[in-house]
């Protein structure tokens, strides 16, 4: 509405362009020792194709609206608490300036030193709550015939009924955040779309400046916290969400911002507005970013034919805690050397009782595990959520990649299958992390879990157990805890015993090994609230049996000793007697060519 408010922006654009031209014309190489001060805006890039590595853009925008893209490593960011803590702060950054290759390109600065200026985050508070007013601008390139989703559709996606973003984020935040959306447009962009592709990618500064400038005659930006820009272009395959510092209608501040491509769906809007609220990506432990269907901030969502769009799942409990949406009273933080049974309420539409998040410290580096209960409810609908289970994330809040990564024990590259889902009767235990998590049962709206951290009980038994022989009774091991406390209970915490062996609650390893090999497993001892785990190694060998003796026994001669006969039967068909199937299996195992 206020045209004059755009003068600084226009000037900034000119300054930026001029600076770029100067640098391009006179400085072909890198300029070391450049210092810039501005607000850090983190913008997460989302590609329209799932499971591609996402780019996280760090833009330092000064008071004039001039942007520079920062190239920083985890080591650069870690001393200041990492990316999420720096997002929105005013910084002075020194580094090596790369020249702008194109007049409209955004310069880049390889970061050498960061100095935060002022402690408070700009615009976004530590707790993200209250009504968030967004204006959605439909901005059209003059050279594109692609029509983005119509205003009616966009209104539905923003609205207070399923699957509108207001409805979606209310459900995620338990009514702590609402999205109040207005619409304006379409507005004509001043340049063809190709002009906005500089340095091989979208120029977010130009897109923001030109779209908001085109809308300014009709829009009073001072009423809004955020700006969604819906373009009539694929934007070269990407959409973006984050924030942008600018002066709009006299308001010099950091705006929640999304840059939406024509292919955007409700889940794209949910994802990008999540970024605009300050949420990072989550992912699995692999190289992909959009591989987790447990989180809208990864690849969570599915097409809902009833509303004709792809609809998002909830975000993960760690993200809700990051936003300040989980009260301290509903967050369980495990202390070292403790064991506790807790109820976890589901992530979506939790009941009034139970914890919404459990956090278990891992080591001393600030890394921790999170536990959350996922059950079918609300946006975590059956068919959209991979299943009902306790989900674990390993969280490293300092790195520049997705801080929360799904724990996937089978390592098969799929974080949406059983390897990442913990259901009643299953135990996650890690000797390295000093953690044991047992899912005891399902509750009305979540799961009951036992969370134990190591520290109070030490297992005295040597980690290398006496070797055994397949087929022969194993009388080898009795576990003991230091100090022999009374009333201890033993169990297998991780891995698996050789078939045929069992660990009794009193700590006796008994049975007849039915498999040979080297077995590694964790044993767990508990006494009251005390708890200890230790990784053990057990080798089970195959007995040496003479071929003549085996064949003689098979063909009616002298019988074999019972242990050897049992070994052959275990190796073969396990029918309780020695037969030609067992002998054939043994000969194959010995490498004898007996035909196929």
């Amino acid at each position, binding site marked *: 509405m206020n045209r004059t408010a755009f003068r600084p922006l226009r000037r900034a654009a000119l300054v930026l362009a001029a600076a770029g031209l100067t640098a391009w014309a006179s400085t072909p190489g890198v300029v070391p020792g450049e210092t810039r001060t501005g607000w850090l805006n983190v913008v997460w890039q989302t590609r329209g194709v799932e499971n591609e590595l996402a780019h996280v853009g760090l833009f330092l925008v000064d008071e004039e609206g001039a942007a520079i893209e920062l190239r920083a490593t985890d080591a650069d960011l870690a001393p200041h608490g990492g990316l999420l803590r720096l997002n929105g702060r005013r910084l002075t950054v020194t580094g090596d300036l790369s020249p702008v290759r194109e007049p409209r390109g955004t310069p880049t600065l390889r970061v050498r030193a960061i100095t935060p200026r002022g402690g408070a985050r700009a615009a976004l508070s530590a707790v993200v709550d209250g009504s968030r007013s967004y204006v959605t601008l439909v901005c059209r390139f003059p050279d594109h015939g692609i029509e983005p989703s119509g205003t009616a559709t966009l209104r539905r996606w923003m609205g207070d009924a399923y699957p509108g973003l207001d409805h979606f984020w209310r459900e995620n935040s338990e009514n702590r955040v609402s999205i109040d959306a207005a619409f304006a447009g379409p507005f004509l962009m001043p340049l063809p779309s190709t002009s906005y592709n500089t340095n091989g990618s979208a120029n977010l500064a130009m897109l923001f400046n030109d779209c908001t400038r085109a809308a300014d005659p009709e829009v009073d930006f001072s009423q809004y916290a955020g700006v969604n820009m819906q373009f009539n272009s694929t934007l070269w395959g990407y959409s973006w969400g984050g924030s942008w510092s600018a002066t709009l209608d006299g308001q010099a501040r950091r705006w929640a911002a999304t840059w939406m491509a024509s292919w955007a769906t409700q889940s794209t809007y949910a994802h990008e507005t999540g970024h605009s609220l300050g949420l990072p990506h989550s992912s699995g432990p692999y190289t992909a970013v959009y591989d987790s269907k447990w989180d809208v901030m990864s690849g969570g969502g599915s097409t809902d034919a009833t509303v004709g769009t792809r609809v998002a799942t909830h975000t993960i409990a760690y993200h809700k805690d990051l936003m300040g949406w989980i009260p301290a009273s509903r967050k369980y933080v495990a202390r070292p050397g403790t064991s506790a049974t807790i109820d976890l309420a589901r992530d979506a539409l939790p009941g009034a009782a139970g914890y919404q998040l459990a956090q278990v410290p891992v080591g001393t580096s600030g890394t921790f595990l999170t536990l959350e209960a996922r059950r079918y409810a609300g946006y975590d609908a059956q068919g959209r959520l991979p299943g009902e289970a306790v989900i674990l994330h390993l969280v490293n809040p300092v790195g520049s990649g997705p801080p929360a990564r799904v724990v996937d024990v089978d390592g098969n590259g799929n974080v949406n299958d059983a390897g990442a889902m913990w259901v009643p009767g299953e135990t996650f235990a890690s000797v390295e992390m000093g953690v044991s998590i047992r899912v005891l049962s399902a509750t009305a709206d979540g799961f009951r879990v036992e969370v134990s951290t190591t520290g109070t009980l030490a297992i005295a038994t040597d980690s290398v157990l006496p070797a055994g022989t397949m087929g022969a009774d194993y009388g080898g091991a009795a576990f003991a805890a230091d100090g022999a406390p009374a009333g201890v209970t033993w169990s297998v915490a991780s891995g698996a015993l050789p078939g045929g062996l069992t660990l009794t609650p009193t700590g006796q390893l008994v049975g007849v090994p039915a498999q040979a090999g080297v077995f590694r497993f964790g044993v767990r001892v508990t006494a009251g609230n005390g708890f200890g785990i230790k990784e053990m190694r057990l080798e089970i060998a195959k007995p040496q049996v003479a071929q003549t003796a085996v064949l003689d026994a098979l*063909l009616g001669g002298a019988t074999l000793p019972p242990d050897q006969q049992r070994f052959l039967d275990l190796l073969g*068909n396990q029918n309780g007697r020695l037969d030609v*199937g067992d002998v054939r299996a043994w000969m194959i195992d010995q490498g004898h060519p007996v035909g*196929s």
Partner: protein
Amino acid sequence: MKTLTCSAALLAAALLAACGESGGTPAQASPGVLTVSLAAPVAGDRALVIAITGPGQVSEVQPAVPGYTAFARTQGTGARVAVMGAIAAGPVLRITVPDVRQAKQYQAAVVDAADGGNTARASMAAYSLTVSR
């Protein structure tokens, strides 16, 4: 009646002629190789145990097919042989006996069998073996 009488006379003449050829002394043994063949295999067999009995001791056992492997144990005039391979209908074993003329008096039977997964067959009733020159 006439026909019967004539037949009896012809049979007597034939028997006399046979005795005449032997010169009146016992026939000399004819050592050699007999073939044990599987007439009715069970699809998917990969291992068999075959029991062989007969009037003379089996002195040597060889697989009849290059892809088979055989292991034998003999005791008296009997033998037990484990045969492994992709067993199909036809010759399975070649056994060396002291007198091949007594081939018809040798008998063979499958007493144990397993498939490619080493699972034991529950019944041997379906198997049929022949021993021939």
